[in-house]
């Protein structure tokens, strides 16, 4: 068994005195999309924050077999891009400047140009609005920009928090298609937190279902979709 790209073992996390994660154990391998599902408050967002270092956590976290650093900046430099809920848009900066920030972690100029072209191909509107203030974009556009920012840093792992939130189904499909293309063509992996289990399972290889800060169910996407009990109890459909 090759060492998984990302490994969480017994990870706990707290917000002040409140414990949000009670021992999470999940893995993400190379070239796969893994979903994290569950009800509100189950700890999905906190799991992503624990990985990127934006919340205090303890336990075993390993990336490429080596322990994850604590500082978010260091985690980002290792090649983990976190697209947070709220999208993290730099509202006062232009679309172009937002993308340049996404590429901050990388050093190569020519690679950036090439990937910029690819981003334009996938989100053509960016080419037309490069000098527009990012804060004036619509929700869907900001989400796409957030994903583009993450991608253009050429991460090995993308963490996406609720990509479908507040977006029309067509756009959501588009987002997931783009994500899938990155996985397939550029060898990235993705860990996606989603409320909309149906869409998520459709586009993932595997999934974990969280409940009250613990992993309740795990398996391949097909297994989970096929299991009526799981669907009814945990996924709401």
């Amino acid at each position, binding site marked *: 068994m090759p060492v998984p790209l990302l490994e969480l073992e017994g990870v706990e996390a707290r917000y002040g005195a409140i414990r949000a994660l009670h021992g999470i154990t999940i893995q993400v391998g190379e070239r796969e999309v893994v979903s994290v599902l569950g009800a509100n408050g189950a700890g999905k967002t906190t799991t992503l924050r624990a990985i990127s270092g*934006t919340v205090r956590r303890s336990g075993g976290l390993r990336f490429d077999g080596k322990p994850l650093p604590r500082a978010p*900046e260091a985690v*980002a430099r290792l090649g983990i891009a976190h697209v*947070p809920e709220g999208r993290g848009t730099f509202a*006062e*900066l232009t679309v172009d400047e937002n993308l340049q920030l996404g590429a*901050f*972690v990388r050093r190569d100029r020519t690679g950036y140009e090439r990937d910029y072209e690819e981003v334009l191909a996938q989100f053509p509107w960016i080419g037309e609005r490069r000098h527009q203030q990012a804060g004036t974009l619509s929700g869907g556009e900001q989400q796409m920009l957030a994903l583009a*920012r993450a991608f253009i840093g050429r991460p090995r792992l993308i963490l996406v928090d609720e990509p479908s939130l507040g977006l029309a189904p067509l756009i959501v499909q588009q987002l997931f298609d783009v994500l899938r293309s990155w996985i397939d063509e550029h060898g990235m992996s993705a860990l996606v937190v989603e409320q909309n289990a149906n869409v998520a399972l459709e586009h993932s290889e595997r999934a974990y279902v969280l409940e009250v800060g613990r992993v309740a169910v795990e398996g391949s996407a097909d297994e989970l979709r096929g299991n009526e009990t799981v669907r009814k109890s945990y996924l709401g459909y």
Partner: protein
Amino acid sequence: MADVLQQVVSGIASGGVYALLALALVLIYRSTGVVNFAQGEMAMFSTFICWELLDRGVPYWVAFFLTLAISFVGGVLIERLVIHVVSRAQALTVVTVTIGLLILLNGAAAWIWKGEQRTLENPFPSRTFDVGGVVIAAQDIGIIAVSLAVVAVLWVFFQKTRVGLAARAAALNPESSRLHGVRVSWMLALGWGLAAVLGAVAGILVAPTQGSFDQNFMLPILIFAFAAAVLGGLDSPIGAVVGGVAVGIALNLIGTYIDFFSDLRLPAALLLILLILLLRPNGLFGRQIARRV
């Protein structure tokens, strides 16, 4: 008319100095949310360092840039060692720390340089130019030129470089910046370093114009710079420059033409600014943070 123009031009020159110091205040306020009451004393200390270098025979422009470099390091150290520690504390605590810094630097300068009056070399010739009846001092042109150059360099840094973009991002959205690998706390230190450089330039430019200076020479200038920064909007660099020039011109005109106010120059200027603030509570170019209720 020529008289007025003359006053305006020399007002622009003194305004340039206020603008530099105001820019320093804005830079720090935008990045760390702190009003650095010690900015003037930091500038004063830098000016003394320049004096010390010149006194030891260092050529002027070498001393100038060496002072800037030392000031940059000083600013970074102050942020890392002092400000960073209290950065999460309430506003009152941070204000008090900068006040403590003010007192400390003033005392240190008095101690090291014995509180005596010193004179700083003037790099600009003392000649004047006659432009259509308006007499303009070469010194004023020199000050305006250097101020413009510094502002331009800063602009290029922030708008056109990778680190400058990261610094702006760190001030606007520190959380998101971290997620993109930006070491936000070092960006803040960078802000303090650059602000210290701005202050140093301001001090070095203005000291020769006052004949002689001692450790208290920057205090009134800080007050004017503070007023200029607030007038322009504490989060607006453009505002700092516009505010600085406006304050410079206004002070000159008030002092020269309104006799009753000539020793009330400072309160008059402040009153003017207060009135403007009542109309625009966030300064001329400041961002309106929506408050209903």
